[in-house]
């Protein structure tokens, strides 16, 4: 097989990235966290952020160079109540789901064997979907208790 070129010059680059990742670890959480955590996500995802103000919520949309899009929905109370993603990769869900990641782990790990479908979790604390296919994944998650009272989950796109 052909060897990859320019590796040595890349090594420094990856080293820096790794430090960024580790350094960002305490501030990873997004879902359920204050709006300020969005910027940590942007740093981690290394994408362009766009802010939109909608009736009843604010939307932060982070687009990276792969075309992947992560959306974070912030309530008037300043909490990220929902996240969604679409793109060629499933983003790091530990980063995106923060303190809600264990809900996903617990449910997903309880699956025995490959069933061949998407993953759907719905309980009173945490709602999650993950589907799509290689190079085209999509998913959404929200916390029912953080959903602003005048909104329905359909705002999460």
């Amino acid at each position, binding site marked *: *097989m052909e060897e990859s070129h320019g*590796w040595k010059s890349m090594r420094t680059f990856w080293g820096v990235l790794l430090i960024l990742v580790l350094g960002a670890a305490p501030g990873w959480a997004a879902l359920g966290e204050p709006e300020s955590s969005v910027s940590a996500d942007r740093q981690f995802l290394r994408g362009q952020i766009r802010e939109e103000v909608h009736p009843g919520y604010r939307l932060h949309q982070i687009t990276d160079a792969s075309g992947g899009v992560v959306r974070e929905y912030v309530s008037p109370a300043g909490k990220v109540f929902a996240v969604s993603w679409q793109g060629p990769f499933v983003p790091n869900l*530990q*980063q995106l789901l923060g303190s809600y990641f264990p809900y996903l782990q617990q449910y997903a790990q309880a*699956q025995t*064997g*490959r069933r061949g479908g998407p*993953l*759907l979790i719905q309980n009173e604390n945490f709602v999650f979907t993950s589907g799509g296919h290689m*190079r085209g994944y999509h998913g959404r998650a929200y916390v029912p208790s953080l959903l602003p009272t005048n909104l329905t989950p359909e705002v999460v796109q």
Partner: protein
Amino acid sequence: MRRKNVSAATRASLLVVMAGGMFLASCGSGGTGNNIPLPVITLSPASASVAAGAPLQFTATVVSSYSTTITWSVNNILGGNSTLGTVSSSGLYTAPASVPNPATVTVKAVSSAETNPSGSAIVTITAPVVNAVVAVAPTDSSTPAGTTVQFAATVTGTANTAVTWSVNGVAGGNSTVGTISAKGLYTAPTTAPSPPTVAVTATSQAETSQSASTTLTLTTSNTAPLYVNFGLNGNTGNPNTASYNGLFTTVTVCLPGTADCQIIPDILVDTGTVGLRVLNSVLTTAPATELGTVRDSAGNQVQECTQFRDTSYAWGPVLVADVVIAGEKAPSVPIQVIGDTTFTVPITSCLSLGSGPSLDTVAALGANGILGIGTSIQDCGLNCAGGQTFSGYPYYICPNDVCQVAPVPLVQQVANPVAFFATDNNGVEIILPSISSAGAPSLPYTNAAGTSLVPAGLLVFGIGTQSNNALGSATVYATDSNGNFSNVVYDEFSFPSGGFVDTGLNALYVLDPHTLGILDCADNPYYCPETPLSLSLTTYGANGASGTVTLNIANADTLFGTNPGFAAFNNLGGARGTGLSTDYFDLGLPFFFGRSVFVGIAGTTAPKNVSAPNGYFAF
């Protein structure tokens, strides 16, 4: 003693012994020469046991000086009946199909002579005992048209182990379905029949009710059989864990440039992923340690963390193998070997992406591997070949045992083997037969008698390259940059980039319970509408093509409850409602039954002058 057979019995043995000179002589010697002796009848056997439904021949021996006719009865009923068994005019008793109560009957032969002498025998009817057990090997195999396959039948439980061979119920077969010799050598026809799956049956000659069947799918150089079943975990009996609608084929993996190959069955066929992934644990004659390696310029072996939509993941090295399917060969193509533990999975990235189970065992994967034959050449593409990495990036190197993400040039990425075939390399055609709306046990399927055959599907390589993969009237849908239809319209609702077709998806996941209002099943992740639904969608390609697709969704609880052993369903829909605006129409395997679906690879010239830089679906 003179014997005269007075019966017209075809099977023999009603004997009437006419009392001839010897008897008379003996009488005469007693001095009573004028007396004519009375007939005496004896039945043989005098008592017997016979299995329900089985025949038993009686012989009546009449000692008489007269010509006499015999009538037969069972429990004094002339000729018997279906409950007690029947007896013919020649004394052939046939036991009833089931054991009567009481289980003992009396078979009687009565002479027409004066005084109506008779003889009787006691028959005990027993439950039928099946001794012969027949097994046939190889099971559910495939062979190219025009070749031969030696079948073997194993018969146990009876001394006579001879069998009679048949193909599709025809003893010895014929020129259309292939012939089979008395010794089980099957010779395939030079052209595969339609459907291309035949049933080969061995029937015990000792007990003709006992037989065993298996299927054989005839392939041509660019076709491989497609099997639908539960996969290697079998039917768990639990809809939450059973892998309905699993699509499988057989792949041969060879050490590059050698004839050291391993035939690996039960490989999942997945148009939703790209590249061959094989479990390390199943590689024996083509072991991972002898496959070619993929390294960066510093000598680090490339590793991959493959994500799947259900958040499960596969970790292992990228290695190089020759991949052979049917008569096509992809030389030196990068594959992923799953479950090679040379390097431990990087917890902070791969594990947190793949929060679900690691698919590193047969039990976890339910297969020996995954054959990804989707719309692209590489599994990642330019996003993994440049200087940038992204959240969810799949490729790693592990210098000093510390794994970190790394760029990998296109030629080193895990790749679609089809794109590397010498011919027929622009895509695939998936052909699955129609099945009942009640489902099917599996594909191919045959019962022990070789009937109720549902043929295997066919994976045909190439699109428009041979007579067996012509596009015909199929509509070409160029996929968008996400690998999806550019738009799906349902009931005036428009879902941009809202769907795809995927053989690796086990149901029709139409993730919009809010719009569709379909009832979820209470205890499993499928849909349970009160009555079967028929959804009409309009699908759009990025090239502007459009067409109507009808999806049928039945009540999954009813499907599973009616036929708990069935693996194949053309109307299984999901999934659980989440309250989210989940606007996707993901058309899994149920969509493929009764269709030919083409999946064209990006970068090839699409048919019908369609511009499809990201690949295409056609159906």
